């Protein structure tokens, strides 16, 4: 499990280098082939014992964050979200710019806000990153327009749960790395695709199909939970601790019925706890894989995660371990899977 290392790296969409390098280092001796494609996707290959089918397991390396869009005269930085980040989670946080410069997103003290603005949700235009620089000139020595900005949350593990940033989708990356570490051979040829730019419109995954022409793709995600006291139970998407979530539909894609049922059958066969993802909001690279080229049957297995797209998300380690187990069993099924 590489959740600590992976989530403490910065890899905002379009700037996945740190994450890619880390994964590359850890897996390069355990696979038959490894390449980085034009967009920056890292694709590892493990030959199958029969090799009549090609299966892609995909997780995205990128996370939501920000980009510096202007350096103001007073030395503060204007910024814009990269991917979906609610303004709610921005103020009062420490961020890292370009992998090194530390800054904070502050907001005007409660004492000097007028009544109206106190009760009005913030917009990103009202927020700036402060790096301790007093002028544009001073700030320009450390940051440039276009620099990437990530949250700085330290990973924590306690009580069977872990908290940190970017479980969407470093959880998926870690699951893939765990599967590679097991170093088993399966019947099908396997491609582990660590893709870029998922959070800005499922972009990295768009060029994978053409390179592999897979028979099946399974996307491994960190997905929304929503199981908290502010949402009535009927609105929950998943529930932490009930096992990995299997998706039947999300934005832009109804999961191939054969794949969906095959995943469920494996879970049932090996008594692996699992749950259906019970909302159709959000999307994954499965939609992109399914509609690229001549189309591919794609499925989704997810680790339920609370508070994603914020600086502190949370997953249950049982769910994580069961996701690894479920995928391992799927691979062990070999040609019997989704026949």
């Amino acid at each position, binding site marked *: 499990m590489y959740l600590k290392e992976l989530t403490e790296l910065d890899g905002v969409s379009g700037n996945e280098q740190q994450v890619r390098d880390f994964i590359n280092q850890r897996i390069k001796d355990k696979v038959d082939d490894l390449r980085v494609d034009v967009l920056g996707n890292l694709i590892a290959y493990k030959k199958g014992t029969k090799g009549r089918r090609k299966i892609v397991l995909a997780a995205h390396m990128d996370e939501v964050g920000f980009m510096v869009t202007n350096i103001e005269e007073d030395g503060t930085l204007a910024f814009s979200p990269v991917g979906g980040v609610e303004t709610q989670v921005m103020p009062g946080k420490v961020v890292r710019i370009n992998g090194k410069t530390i*800054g904070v997103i502050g907001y005007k003290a409660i*004492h000097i806000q007028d009544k109206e603005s106190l009760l009005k949700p913030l917009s990103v235009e009202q927020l700036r990153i402060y790096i301790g620089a007093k002028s544009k000139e001073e700030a320009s020595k450390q940051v440039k327009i276009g620099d990437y900005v990530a949250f700085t949350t330290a990973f924590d593990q306690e009580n069977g749960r872990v908290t940190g940033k970017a479980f969407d989708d470093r959880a998926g990356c870690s699951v893939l790395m765990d599967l590679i570490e097991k170093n088993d051979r399966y019947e099908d040829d396997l491609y582990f695709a660590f893709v870029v730019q998922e959070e800005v419109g499922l972009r990295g995954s768009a060029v994978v199909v053409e390179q592999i022409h897979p028979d099946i793709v399974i996307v491994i995600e960190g997905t929304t939970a*929503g199981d908290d006291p502010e949402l009535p139970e009927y609105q929950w998407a998943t529930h932490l601790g009930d096992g990995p979530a299997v998706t039947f539909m999300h934005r832009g894609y109804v999961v191939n019925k054969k794949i969906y049922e095959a995943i469920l059958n494996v879970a049932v066969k090996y008594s692996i706890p699992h749950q259906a993802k019970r909302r159709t909001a959000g999307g994954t690279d499965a939609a992109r894989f399914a509609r690229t080229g001549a189309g591919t049957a794609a499925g989704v297995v997810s680790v339920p995660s609370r508070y994603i797209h914020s600086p502190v998300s*949370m997953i249950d380690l049982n769910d994580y371990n069961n996701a690894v187990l479920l995928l391992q069993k799927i691979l062990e099924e070999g040609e019997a899977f989704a026949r």
Partner: protein
Amino acid sequence: MDVKELIKELSLLDGPSGYEAEVLKVIEKKIEPFVDKVWYNKVGTLVAEKKGFGKGKLGIFAHADEVGHVITKIEEGLFARLEMIGGVDPKIMFAQRVRIHTKNGVAKGVVGVLPPHLQKEEHRNKVPNFDKIFVDLSCSELGKYVSVGDICVVDMKPVELNGKLCGKAMDDRAGCASLILAAQLLQTLRNYQDVYFVFSGQEEVAGPGAVSIAYELKLDRAIVVDVTHGDVKVPQFVQIKVGEGPAICVGPSIDREFQSKLSEIAQKHNVKTQIEPAPGRSGTDTDEIQLTGSGIRTALVSIPLMYMHTPVEVVDPKDVEETARLLALATTVE
């Protein structure tokens, strides 16, 4: 004493109003070597006393408490609700880590937030009040011990930003630090007046910390050291700058003569200061200290600070040092 390390250490301590004991214990240890004696009054205010060679009684005040939260409800599934101690903007609460002080130790929590995928217009168009904010305790071994009445603070480790320090509770641990540094300076400067360094509690709720001791000590004069809004535009007001020295306050809750004397001392010794007008109440302990007993001559010295009452308050350690110098010098004259 390294000023940055001192401020960072004090910022890390948890002490919302009424629960300052841990903070005061640390301050007591730090200041004890520099004074004649230290003691606490009935409401838990810490006093560090240093006799002078002349006459007069000068109290120098900083509050040890910080804004924070208290657990008000426990919900099924290891969740809790909280309310604020002092004024906290709910807008800065989401996705913060918090520390909850339970009887069995410090539990960890996360303030939850709906992911964008599940947010609807009603969530986006409204600022949730504290009724809607919840803490997830399932990431903590001690989560099951959290109970109503437990004190809670945002978990924030101080960071350095180009020489400035950023963290929680800089309001008013920066002030506390300046008092400790001033006491240290009195090892070489000699104080004319009897000096009482007062570390009080419950400032953020306008509680009894400062006024009780001001009464008890029968002070002639009091200097209150607190923080003020720096590097932000407040309509109609001069902009106080972070890094340009402490702000000396002028206004009805300040004694005019005492204030001008303080300004003179600053000028004479090249202590960088700024002037801050407070046309009504100052919003600090000064307001009530002035009215204590038969009246006390007051001055207010404020350390410029950004993002007050958020976990990312910013101060410049140079301002803290300049404040300490001004305080120490103020004790040496009649």
